């Protein structure tokens, strides 16, 4: 299905957030996620179903002031 990942149009075969993260190579990467602007905790990724057109944000620790 087609979704948007960090602003970029992306096609994924996975139907859950957890599987999509693994499919995109984030399986063992320290990230946090939001779907359609709402935070999705790591504990809910396996049961969070993705649907066509979802907007997924994947963030990681970065430098900040």
């Amino acid at each position, binding site marked *: 299905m087609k979704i948007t990942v*960090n*602003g970029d149009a992306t096609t994924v075969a996975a139907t859950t957030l957890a599987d999509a993260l693994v499919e*995109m*190579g*984030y399986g063992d*990467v*320290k*990230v*946090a*996620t*939001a779907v359609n*602007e*709402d*935070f999705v*905790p*790591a504990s809910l990724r396996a049961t969070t179903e993705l649907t066509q057109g979802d907007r997924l*944000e*994947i*963030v*990681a*620790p*970065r*430098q*900040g*002031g």
Partner: protein
Amino acid sequence: MATFYGTEVSSRLMLGTAQYPSPAILADAFKRSGAGIATVSVRREAGSDKAGNAFWDLIKDLGVAVLPNTAGCHSVREAVTTAHMARELFDTDWIKLEVIGHMDTLQPDPFALVEAAKILTEDGFKVFPYTTEDLIVGEKLLQAGCEVLMPWGAPIGSGLGLSNIYGLRSIRAQFPDISMVIDAGLGLPSQAAAAMEMGFDAVLLNTAVAKAGDPALMAEGFAQAVVSGRMAYDADPMEPRDMAAPSTPLIGKAFL
């Protein structure tokens, strides 16, 4: 010692982690600064290159407490979602809450700031709000559940120092028992010392150190200024006066 939400911090200097020439220089600056709290952010992970993991390993090695921010957020929803992502990533309920209202000055949007602070406090966060010196906004933030206020010295990254001395003195006097941090706008150690002499509990800065020609040296300069300024505050300084008062006794002076 400064206390933030019941946590004692030995250093009154809080340091940002952005804009350093290299990770090694960042680490060196932190060691020289003695800072006990580092601000960090969350940003989009570009691909699966694990840049976030590498940065996180660097911060963990510093052995400091981490204060994630919501930098760049312009709405309540954006800030709240970012805070939740930061809490999970950094495993801390501390959040430096920034809700920006003006692009050129990066002045906080006080209305959105108060609303976001209330939501996050109810969600269990310990909120460090980046605010102005406005007394009413300060009062509303405390009512929203904040136990720390972080008024700006000047616009972020400007290096202008304490642009409204009267306003900062007022907010310090208005909330004498609240931990208060001067956040943003400092460019020189003398400005940090001035903030500490006014009785602020700590200062938070980033650009002044990261963009100095020698960040580690500037970090130590700020560290010493913060200590000196606090010593002066604790020492109960003399009152200034308009006219001279001779320090050398007149009694006993020879008649010549």
